[in-house]
């Protein structure tokens, strides 16, 4: 992919409601302008799953707020989601280990899993995924935008 000089950053705070997802996805998709379609789809898919996780599992009220940052530069797209819901460190670590073990042996990746599909999408489609827990949850996902660091 060639560098088309498309840079930009968007920060937004939205209520913890699934109804806000489509609008946020449109913003992210727009920021993905010029990125190959398959990569853009992967980035938006990872955001889709991480936003769903917060809305569905954080135990926040619909009036609570979620802070979202999209930041694209010449080499990467960064997506950060900050919320004050319950910690998901346990699931983050659990499904990270599942992803690593499945990547090591693809044949162990069972079809029709009941849980963790969202985390599989996140870990597979993004180049780096980190989680910090202090007074809030901070999930940072980075997708490199060059072939040398391609995620999948």
């Amino acid at each position: 992919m060639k560098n088309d000089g498309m840079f930009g950053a968007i920060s937004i705070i939205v209520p913890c409601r699934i109804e806000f997802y489509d609008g946020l996805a449109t913003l992210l998709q727009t920021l993905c302008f010029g990125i190959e379609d398959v990569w853009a789809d992967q980035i938006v898919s990872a955001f889709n799953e991480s936003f769903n996780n917060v809305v569905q599992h954080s135990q926040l009220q619909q009036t609570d707020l979620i802070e979202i940052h999209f930041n694209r530069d010449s080499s990467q797209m960064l997506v950060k989601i900050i919320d004050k819901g319950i910690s998901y460190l346990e699931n983050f670590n659990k499904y990270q280990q599942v992803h690593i073990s499945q990547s090591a042996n693809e044949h162990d990746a069972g079809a029709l899993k009941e849980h963790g599909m969202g985390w599989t999408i996140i870990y597979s489609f993004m180049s780096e995924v980190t989680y910090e827990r202090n007074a809030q949850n901070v999930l940072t996902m980075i997708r490199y935008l060059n072939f040398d660091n391609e995620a999948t």
Partner: protein
Amino acid sequence: MADISNEQVDYEVSHDGKVTIVAIRGRLSALHASRIQAALSALPKHGQVYIVLDLSKLTWIDSSGVGALVSLYKLAKAQNGDVKVIGLQRQPKEIFRLLRLEVAFEVCETVEQAISLMNFG
């Protein structure tokens, strides 16, 4: 670039002999997955267990949407039914590949092929 702005999901059910064909259009994501899952789950409950999912106009799917399809698959299989998929495009195709859903859902080219490969028990 996929058009993802405010696109809803809808479905249409038709029949070809013993086979039920469900065409799902739009974005099958968390916002609508429970509604679609309820509709799909009603099919096996009414004895419609041989199902072709036409996903040629499905533009987006997330894990909640996948859950709705998996739920249908399990209900149909529990009654010795079968579920085939046709028409996967772009992002849904990538999600099926990543989650290895084609291991369970046999992906076919056409409705006719899907019906010809259907296991009628």
